[in-house]
Structure formats: C-alpha cells, structure tokens
C-alpha cells in the first residue's frame, strides 16, 4: 500500500465488499423469510383474527402485495430499499428506519460502554496473568475467564438483576428510562442509571476472550529474545512490561476488540431482553417473535453493517502496523 493511491483502492474494495455482502444478506434473508410458517397477516392482526372476514383478508393481502410472486416482491422491496425506505414495521406501526434510528443510540451507548470496559479490564487481566504466569493469580484469572466463556449471558443478567435490582434495590429493574415519566423529564443521569446493569452484564462476559488472547500473546512476547536481553540488563516486573511488553501486545488486543462486534451485538440482544432495555436487540427479538418481516430484515442488515465496520477497523489497524514495518524495512 503506497501512499494515497493505495488507500483509495483499499477503501474502494471495502465498500464494494460491504455492498455485495449487504445484497447477499438481504436477498438470502428475504428468501428465507418467505418460508416461514408464520402467517404475517395473522401475526399482524393477532388475536382478533377470527373476526376478520375473508374479504378483508384478501384486501390486506393485496395492499401488502402478497399476491405478487416472490421475485416481484423482492424487486419491490429492493427498489424501496435503495430509495431509503425500509418499509413499515407491523408491530410498532412506524417506519422501520425511524425505529432503528430511535433505538440505535440506546444500543450503541450500551455497547460502547461495555466494549470499553471489557476491553480495558480484559487487557489488564490478560497482562497480569501473563506476567505472573503459573502463579495462583494467573490460575485464578484463567479459571475466571474460562468459566465466563461458558456462562449464558442472560443468566448473568438475571443474577445481577436479582442482586442489584431486587435484593439490594440499588438499581432499577428494567427499561431504559424511569417508568411513568414523560420524555422531557428524563435526564442523562436517569438514562445512565438504567444502563448500568446491562452494561455491567456485557462487560463481565466480554472480558473473557480478550483476557485469554492477551495472555497468550504476551506469553509469546515474553519468550522472545529481546525480552531475555532486557531481563539480562536488569529490567523486570512492571518496568519490563512498560518498556517492552506493552507496545507488542496492545495492537493485537485492540484489533481483537474491534473484531468482536459480532459477539457484542449478540450479548446486547440478550441483555436488553432481560432488562427490557429499549435497544435494537429487543426490537430484533420482538420482530422475530411476532413475525415482523420488514423490521427483522432492516435489523439484520443493520447488524451486518455494524459487524462489518468493526471488522474493517480491525483490518485497517492490522495493516497499518504491518506495512509500516515492511516499508521501513525496504527503505
């Protein structure tokens, strides 16, 4: 990658890839959803289905374009999509784009906090474990991480809910804002308090993979020649890490964090469900339960973009450190 030209091509490729992925995901999802046994009209009307006559039903079908062939439906949907129209949600009776926009900030805030906390703590734990390899502390940290990796996110969420919400009563039991308050009365503080438990859940479980990964990477670094020499010069402990270890492991850790957007989103879905937190995850679950195809499609695409962004940043970071060394080597 040399200079501006290289970057332009790189970005171009990435955009192309994103588009092709989105197209693939959307087409595939659309086709899949046609096979669902859930009847969208029944899901829409709900319990009052019996009261709807056959005529009314066929009217609805026509309105929704369900008489068209699947390809036609796909094309119509695709066309609307390009124009920015994601359709209307059946559950919430709002444009899908609006719903996503509303809930986007909530989810992103939650995930950002969890991402930062789990990244920092995970990194610190991994470093400590590697520096004190095979000690009691290391074994404790490994045990903790392995256990966490096998723990259901929603169970941790339930436990936290029980302890902090019910028993101690310190934190609210659910929702994104205090119940019964009108929108203009809600402060940032309120929002923050409601976000604490879900964020804590996600942070706790997200620590495991980055801690183990950092531990492995730092262990590898500590077995290298230059560390041996540094030790021969009298460096040890934190000084050794600060001078030599840190810069060799910090980039892999950050790269891994960015590549873990997929897990993050998955965890958010579960945490939001337990705490009834109004984010994208909760919307996904509702859409799936009640057969809201437009909303579900929109959310699937949104999550795909999210994961893609994370992977792309990880890729950029990874390439940035590599060709720099290569370029310098060749100069």
């Amino acid at each position, binding site marked *: 990658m040399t200079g501006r030209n290289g970057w332009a091509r790189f970005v171009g490729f990435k955009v192309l890839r994103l588009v*092709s*992925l989105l197209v693939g*995901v959307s087409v*595939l*999802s659309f086709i*899949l*959803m046609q*096979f*669902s*046994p*859930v009847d969208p009209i029944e899901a829409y009307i709900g319990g009052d289905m019996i009261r709807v006559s056959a005529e009314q039903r066929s009217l609805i079908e026509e309105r929704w374009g369900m008489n068209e062939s699947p390809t036609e439906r796909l094309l119509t949907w695709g066309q609307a999509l390009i124009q920015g129209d994601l359709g209307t949600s059946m559950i919430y009776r709002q444009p899908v784009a609006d719903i996503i926009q509303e809930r986007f900030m909530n989810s992103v805030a939650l995930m950002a906090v969890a991402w930062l906390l789990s990244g920092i703590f995970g990194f610190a734990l991994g470093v400590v474990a590697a*520096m004190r*390899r*095979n000690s009691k502390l290391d074994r404790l940290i490994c045990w903790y991480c*392995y*256990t966490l*990796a*096998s*723990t*259901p*996110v*929603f*169970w941790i969420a*339930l*436990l936290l*809910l*029980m302890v902090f919400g*019910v*028993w101690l009563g310190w934190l609210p*039991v659910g929702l994104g804002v205090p119940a019964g308050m009108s929108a203009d009365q809600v402060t940032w503080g309120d929002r923050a308090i409601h976000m604490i438990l879900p964020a804590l859940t996600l942070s706790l479980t997200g620590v495991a993979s980055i801690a183990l990964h950092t531990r*492995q990477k730092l262990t590898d670094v*500590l*077995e290298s020649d230059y*560390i*041996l020499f540094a*030790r021969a010069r009298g460096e*040890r*402990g934190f000084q*050794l890490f600060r001078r030599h270890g840190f810069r060799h492991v910090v980039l892999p850790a950050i790269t891994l964090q960015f590549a873990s957007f*997929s*897990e993050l*989103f*998955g965890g958010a*879905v*579960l945490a939001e*469900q*337990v705490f009834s937190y109004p984010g994208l995850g909760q919307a*996904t*679950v509702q*859409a*799936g*339960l009640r057969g809201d195809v437009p909303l*579900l499609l929109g*959310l*699937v695409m949104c*999550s*795909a973009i*999210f*994961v*893609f962004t994370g992977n792309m940043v990880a890729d950029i970071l990874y390439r940035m450190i590599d060709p720099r060394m290569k370029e310098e080597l060749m100069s």
Partner: protein
Amino acid sequence: MKQTVERSSEQTTETSPVQKVKTTTQEVRYEINTGLLKAETGTGPTRQTRRRYAGVSNQRFRNPRQRAVIWGSLAVIWIVIVWLTGRLLPAGSTLTSLLDRNLSPTWAHPFGTDWLGRDMFMRTLKGLATSIQVGLLAACGGGLIALLLGLGAATIKAADRVISWIIDLFLSVPHLVSLVMLAFVFGGGLAGVAAAIALTHWPNLARIVRAEMIQLKSAEYIHISHKLGQSRLRIAVQHMLPHLVPQLFVGVLLIFPHAILHEAAITFLGLGLSPQQPAIGIILSESMRYLSAGMWWLAFFPGLALLLVVRAFDVLGNSLKTLTGTGNSREVR
C-alpha cells in the same frame, strides 16, 4: 552406573533453584537451546542411555497430557451422567404438585420448586438432557455441512470462491440475530432449533477444514505419493484423513458449548422449543416473572447447571485438542 540422582540431591543444600526468581518464564528458550544441541550432526554416539523420571513430578511442571487425560475423562463422565439421568427420569418426576409450591431449596427438593410445585432439580436435569440432545444434533449437522463445503472449497477452485463468499456472508451477521431469523423461519421446535444452530456454526469449522485441506494438498509428501503412483483415494485415506479427522472431531466437539448456549438463549427469548418441554431457556425465562418475589432458586440453579455442562464440553474439547496435538500445545512432544 553412577547415580546422578544422588549426586544432585547431595548438592541440594547448595543449589540455587532458579525457578524462585519472580520473573517471567521462558519455555521456548529451552526449545531453542535444544535446537542448537540437535543441530549437531547426529552421527556421534548419544551419551548413555536415558532414564525416565516417570512419576517423580516437579511441583510446577506437570505433563500437560496427563492433565488433559484426567480432566477430559472427568468431563466425559459428568456429561454422560447428566444426560443419562435426564433421559431416564420417569415422566412423573416433573408433575405439578400444588401442595409444594414455591419451596426454597431443601433436602427433598435440592433446587426448590416452582409456582406449580414442580421439582426444579428434575426439571433442570430434563432440560439439560434436551440441551445436550439439541447440541448433539446441531453439532453433527453443522459438522457435516462444514465437512462437505470445506472439502468442496478446497478441491474445486470455482466452488472455493462461492463457498468463501457464503462463509463471509454467514459470518457477517451476529450469531444471535441470524439465529432469531432462522428460528423464525423454521418455526421453532427441536429440529428447527437444531437446524438453526447448525446453520450458524458451520462457517467457522468449514474454514478450518478448508485451510487444513489446502495445506495438506500442497504438502510435499502428498505430491510425492501422487508421483509414485498411488491412487487419489489411497492418498486421501492414508495421508490426509489422519490429519483431518482429529481436527474435525475436535472442531465438532467445540461446537457443543456454543450450540448449547445458543439453544438456551433462543429458547429463553421464546423462539425455540415449546413451553411444554422443559428446557433450561424456558425455565429461566419463566423464572424472570418470579424474581421480584424473591424466588432466586428458580434462576440460580438451572443456570449454574447449564454452566457446568457447557464447561464440561469445553474442557473435553480442549483436552482432546492437547491430546491430539491440534492446538497450540508446543510444550508436549
């Protein structure tokens, strides 16, 4: 023959055990040193016969294989016990008994009872058995798809691009989101959930299979075998299979923990098995309603049990990884 053990023990009072220094360990330095030693042309006589110190274990240095075998066996035993008890429990053990409602854990009911008086311990066991079954189906299904597509991608160039693109496609959506979508498509039920999980977990394994196959195909000894006239089938069976099978087996086994966790998650969200069947996810989602009433045992024990089962599969998978040498275990020869 001189007794070296005695000699070293004579000097133990004066030895300086280097391990006590609180600095980092470097096991690979040793590798490099013996690498140098082995670099000597091996025509010279090796110094006297080797003596194995089997059983005399240094405190801090246990053979990883030993640990893998022990823990792996324990994990298998635990899983089998859980599964069998879950399967073989008589159907009547989870009947409602309105007299015993909402009991906190006692000796008669180790996990307490729920609002219908059902024994949570039995329900949990049954739920675990179901989870293991679903995990089994999903892992095998996913493994099969991964094997076929991975092999296909590695052998046929044209298929490679398509399959790689499909793998990227599946991996670009978070697992849980695609699970929600697939569960919606398949409509729930045991088979549906298993199919959904199989479809979300095959990509990673397929990648591994594909990478392994590509590496094998370009290995020298494969080329040589081919040139020597061995038929493709024979090469495949004799040379490639021994490398592929352990990787595949371990890979499938390692899908289990994820499969079980995801099955519980999907069921928890309400998209999976029907509420009639006791599954951990259902148990936990129902317990949410009673949390504020303080019935903590409804959520605590089932989740803990699930954790232990998932962990057991994880341990089993990692033990096999160490034993078959498919992981990063450089420490063991």
